[in-house]
């Protein structure tokens, strides 16, 4: 039975259900226990599972990421929370050279079934060092899977898939999405990794997006609808593996594509989507693929400048108008 719960509750529900289902699953990170989670995602879990399975760590990402990887190598299924993905930079070597490589360098003898999770990208005025969209770094790495859900139901379904997957899965959440509500089915719902979802059907332009930007795209689409532009929104959900079939299918239908994500415009997931769209749907494209991203600057602290730098519905609307206008008659003037 679906009921309306918050994003953070959906995540918590997935973790609790998986921990109840499988004793090897445990949670570890800064403030996940006694403090009930920096963003209250893990609220009540220490009380429920005790300190053996909900472990508070020192402020030492390199350390507890490495401990998690080691635990996964010997058969446990850790969930490692980063207070924000920005802090994972300290543990980058563990993830890049540890988690992503274990299976390869052990010749398949060792798996690394671990989930790293935490809030990602911009929040409200957390400064340049805490506002970064880290998924772009990790999504380039073979051996890692990266997911970034936009809705509570997907958060629950993807978290379950991530925990059950035998590979490292990096789970990108969003501070500003934790409180959004949505229908979430009770019990065991699974959203497979690597499957995108059309969250709004349309005919004139595909917006490929994920995470918080899916909501920005929705807002833009509603405005564009009033102008007579029908936007299809594809929520990637998984960034690696990338659901190229879904991208290609949608672009073949609408002939135009705008990619919207947080993070800088140099390279990244948007460039990857653009590559797939132009390579696999070239003959269906009626306009260049545009990307709407965070500006190519360190995030300003100033609230107005921060708003300016991050993708807002207005910029998405502008990009969609631009690609759609190429496919339509010129103004008579």
């Amino acid at each position, binding site marked *: 039975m679906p009921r309306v719960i918050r994003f953070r509750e959906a995540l918590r529900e997935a973790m609790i259900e998986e921990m109840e289902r499988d004793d090897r699953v445990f949670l570890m990170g800064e403030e996940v226990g006694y403090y009930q989670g920096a963003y209250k995602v893990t609220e009540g879990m220490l009380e429920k599972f005790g300190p053996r399975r909900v472990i508070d760590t020192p402020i030492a990402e390199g350390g507890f990421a490495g401990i998690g990887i080691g635990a996964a190598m010997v058969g446990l299924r850790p969930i490692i929370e980063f207070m924000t993905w920005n802090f994972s930079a300290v543990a980058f070597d563990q993830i890049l050279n540890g988690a992503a490589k274990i299976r390869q360098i052990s010749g398949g003898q060792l798996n690394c079934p671990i989930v790293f999770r935490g809030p990602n990208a911009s929040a409200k005025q957390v400064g340049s060092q805490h506002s970064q969209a880290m998924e772009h770094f990790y999504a380039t790495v073979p051996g890692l899977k990266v997911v970034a859900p936009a809705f509570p139901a997907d958060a629950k379904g993807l978290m379950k898939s991530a925990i059950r997957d035998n590979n490292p899965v990096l789970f990108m959440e969003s501070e500003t999405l934790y409180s959004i509500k949505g229908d979430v089915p009770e019990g065991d719902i699974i959203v497979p990794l690597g499957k995108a979802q059309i969250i709004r059907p349309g005919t004139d332009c595909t917006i490929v997006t994920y995470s918080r930007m899916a909501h920005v795209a929705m807002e833009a689409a509603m405005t564009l609808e009033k102008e007579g532009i029908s936007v299809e929104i594809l929520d990637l959900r998984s960034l690696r593996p990338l659901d190229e079939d879904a991208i290609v299918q949608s672009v073949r239908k609408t002939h135009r594509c705008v990619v919207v994500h947080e993070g800088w415009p140099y390279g990244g997931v948007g460039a990857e989507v653009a590559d797939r769209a132009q390579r696999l749907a070239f003959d269906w494209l009626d306009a260049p693929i545009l990307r709407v991203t965070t500006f*190519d600057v360190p995030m300003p602290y100033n609230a107005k400048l921060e708003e300016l730098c991050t993708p807002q519905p207005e910029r998405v609307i502008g990009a969609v108008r631009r690609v759609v206008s190429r496919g339509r008659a010129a103004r008579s003037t």
Partner: protein
Amino acid sequence: MAKILNMPKLSPTMEEGVLVAWHKNEGDSVDIDDLLAEVETDKATMEFRSFDKGTLLKILVQAGESVKLGQAVAALGNAGENVTELIAQAAAPAPARTTSPTLPVPSPAPGAAAPAPVVVAPPPQVPFQPVSRGSLLTRTEREAADAESADTEAGAADATGATGQVLASPYVRKVARERGIDLTGAHGTGVHGRIVPADLDSLATRPPSSDSAGHAGAAVAQGAHAPAPTPASLAAPEVRPLSPMRKTIARRLANSKASVPHFYLTIDVDAEALVALRELINGQLAEVGKNTNQKKASDEAKPLKVSLNDLLVKAVAAALVRVPECNAQFDDNAILVHRRVDISVAVAIPDGLVTPVVRNADQKSVVAIASEIRDLASRARAKKLSPKEMSDGTFSISNLGMFGIDEFSAVINPPEGGILAVGRVRHEPVVKDSAVVPGKKIAMTLSCDHRVIDGAAGAAFLAELRSLIEHPMRILTG
């Protein structure tokens, strides 16, 4: 040092030519100005002569092949030189036309840029919103905006027909391919004439543009062109590739009929006296010929004969001198009344027709005109006329009398203002001095460019012409 010989521009409007025959073989030595090959251009068969000395090392294009301007046709150098690499370089794809400053920009032949039919589009729902350069867009968005600005410049050039590029997305091109729609030369309703998906329906029904006819012809030559789909139950037509001349005819005449407002004036002239005069002249010429040609070889001994058409050329020239309004052409800002009377004479040849020009016909004798036309016509049939000999006429005559046509109307040969279509001499009863007697008549129809020639001026010209023909001695006296 070996070099590649490229197809030269042998006529002012040439874009490609058919290499009709090689006059040198591989290994032959070549001197400056030696005839290398003959090339059929859009105008005539032209001589391709060497600018250099050396040995023809390699022939890259076989006789009968269609060759684009600037395309490599042969390698010339010292005997024994290895030209493999040079040829490989020449075969590498040439830079795109728009970016190559060395390729001559084809001067648009009159009417070459026939406008595509204007497609009436519904009012656009999407305003095109240019992005101000200074705004704080991300680089990806800004570059897209810049690309649009570049489009603007390309679009402006396109509007002048200089680039000839078709603006259409991969999607539009794909659909066009699938539906067999030829986009060459097409203009769409999008920004800068970009072809948008909605344009494809109207483009599907348009007649092929002059340019596209050329391209289709090239494709036919390579055997790649699929003829227009024929229902499966019907036999497919025989596909005859377009010769350069046929393409030119198609382009010029379609443009003339589409853009020049034609109207037609017909007279039926008593030709009794004209026919009699011709017989008189020819009788005398034969007498003279007998005496002067006795010692000459028999094939040159054919005495010169004057045809009715020769007399009519002279008559028309004389009438044009009297009514100069009909010896004029339309220009965008003015009517140009010619100070010369240069008559284009339509000559049918196996593959089509050409119009060699008799210059200053008003100042030449009928015999001079006759011998000139005979020379022009025989060289026309051999495709040996130079483009110069076929351009810049001021008025045309087309005579289908020898084919038994009673009367017809002709298509104006732009930029000329008029053309006279002449039928056969009809033997029929005429009323003379209140009695019906056997007579001879010729019907002739003047096609006028109404922008230049009004009905009254055309009628005045025909009245002069009738008067000349019915009193043909005046033709001889000018």
